[in-house]
């Protein structure tokens, strides 16, 4: 058939930077064309975006995240965290990870965290006496922490796609957020232990707890302190649905940053809206066209055939998980997280479920691997962003990040082979 040259042409176009949405569209169009289906199905599938109430969370949380990173929230957040944790060994590295996780959860691991917070945290770390390599590696690594915590956009996207596929096992976004808690804690503890180990010869001086500083820091950040409670508290307690939490957060952040702190003027607000919605538009567009492609793939029974084919070569769950880890790691190195999710989830989920893997657990595995992919040389995205942001050669970033990468690799393996870690809070 004449399919091979077309596929090669599309791969070449992808290699030279053709937008992913247009490539996905091209594949979907070809598929529908060969099945004699009117291409009007594509706008119809795009319109299905309006059938997913959860998607409302996407523009709202992204907007809130961009607004926070454009104002001085990060400074205030770091100050409060330090005032609270200053007496704690390797306190600043813990603060770095926690604050970065907060920002990454809002914006997805898009590099914004490293760009917005790196300039603040990297000098602070080196000045406090942390080794240079350690500081650089930590800030780079922290840029993709927090993907498994609310309101992580990639996790929301994962759940939406799985829900659209009607696989017979209903999952909710609340379950996914619960599943992310212990794996994130595991990574935090491992990074903390590593920090202690690195500074064992020359421990970083502790800052004595100072009540006045805490009070000042709290007063300065008083309007932003309720935010984590809305988002985390609201979602985990079940008071807010995720899209409700998004609406409240967006409105609150808008009022606080524009009218109370007055750090964003109206002109800047328009810019923030443009930038954040450019990202949302890019994600929604690939989501929409991927829904069309998914529909075609399911019609053509591709996932079932894929499962049958893989089953001939891999007969047990554990081998499958190893192959899956390797595959996702490679994927995370070349694709950004949102594209990887919309393109691969429809194919991977049915196959993994065939091996008896819970879709929520798979989501956590998927994202944890993506997170690792961001740090994996030679083409992990966080590495390039850090190199650009800190003006360091990429080789220096490689060297300083490798211990962290290995650490996260271990945590990804634990997460993968210990399903209970993710599923313990979920009725399954």
């Amino acid at each position, binding site marked *: 058939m004449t399919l091979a040259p077309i596929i090669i042409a599309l791969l070449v176009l992808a290699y030279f930077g053709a*937008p992913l949405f247009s490539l996905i569209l091209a594949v979907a169009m070809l598929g529908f064309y060969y099945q004699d289906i009117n291409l*009007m199905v594509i706008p119809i599938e795009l319109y299905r975006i309006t059938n997913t*109430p959860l998607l409302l969370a996407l523009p709202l949380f992204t907007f809130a995240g961009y607004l926070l990173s454009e104002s001085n929230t990060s400074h205030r957040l770091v100050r409060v965290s330090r005032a609270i944790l200053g007496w704690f060994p390797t306190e600043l590295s813990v603060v770095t990870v926690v604050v970065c996780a907060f920002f990454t959860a809002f914006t997805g691991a898009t590099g914004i965290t490293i760009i917005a917070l790196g300039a603040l945290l990297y000098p602070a770390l080196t000045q406090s006496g942390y080794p240079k390599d350690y500081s650089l590696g930590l800030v780079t690594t922290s840029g993709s922490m927090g993907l498994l915590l609310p309101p992580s956009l990639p996790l929301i996207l994962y759940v939406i796609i799985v829900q659209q596929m009607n696989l017979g096992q209903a999952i909710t976004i609340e379950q996914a957020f619960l599943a992310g808690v212990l794996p994130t804690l595991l990574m935090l503890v491992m990074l903390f232990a590593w920090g202690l180990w690195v500074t064992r010869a020359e421990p970083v001086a502790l800052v004595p707890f100072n009540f006045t500083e805490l009070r000042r820091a709290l007063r300065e950040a008083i309007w932003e302190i309720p935010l984590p409670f809305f988002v985390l508290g609201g979602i985990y307690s079940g008071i807010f649905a995720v899209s409700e939490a998004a609406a409240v957060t967006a409105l609150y952040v808008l009022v606080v940053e524009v009218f109370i702190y007055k750090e964003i003027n109206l002109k800047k607000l328009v810019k923030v809206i443009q930038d954040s919605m450019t990202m949302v538009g890019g994600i929604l567009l690939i989501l929409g066209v991927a829904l069309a492609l998914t529909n075609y793939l399911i019609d053509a029974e591709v996932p079932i055939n894929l499962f049958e084919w893989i089953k001939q070569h891999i007969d047990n769950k554990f081998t499958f998980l190893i192959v899956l880890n390797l595959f996702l790691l490679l994927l995370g190195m070349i694709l950004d997280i949102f594209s990887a999710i919309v393109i691969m989830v429809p194919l991977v989920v049915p196959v993994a479920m065939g091996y008896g893997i819970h879709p929520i657990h798979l989501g956590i595995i998927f994202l944890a691997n993506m997170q690792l992919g961001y740090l994996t040389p030679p083409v992990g995205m966080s590495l390039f962003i850090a190199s650009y942001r800190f003006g360091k050669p990429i080789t220096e970033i490689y060297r300083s990040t490798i211990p962290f990468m290995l650490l996260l690799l271990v945590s990804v393996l634990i997460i993968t082979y210990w399903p209970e870690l993710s599923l313990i809070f979920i009725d399954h």
Partner: protein
Amino acid sequence: MHNLIALHTRLLQLEDIFLVGFLVLTIVLASLQILLRNFFDTGIIWGDSFLRIAVLWIGMLGAMYASRDDRHISIDIGMRFLSAHIKPYVQALVFIFTAVICTIVFWYGLQLVLLELEDGQYGFARIPVWLCESIIPFAFMVIAIRYFVAAILALLNEP
């Protein structure tokens, strides 16, 4: 020519107004719905439908923005290895491909809207479905035009 540039600036401003307006309206309306539902046990009947359609409109407007300066998500490994001589041609080819694909979606989107126009169903309140859907062909038309223009500019700028 001068008038055309002025018109283009106006259109860009209109795009801004629509995007900002939709997002702010969405934030306010979504918050209002929560307030009404939890404290007054009521709500705006068409509110939730509006919000779901607003997400599509915001997304499509955002996608139009992303095509202003080719900020769509892509892999782009190869371009940096090309010589300055051949680069504009490859760039133009990639842009034309994108533009053609978008033109096809525009065309079928238009057919869908025309079909719905005959059908006369309502999306929410008194807003017909065809109007809600119309952003799809419209956005793809704008994206296609932008990528065609980008292709021409890439060729004109060749060294």
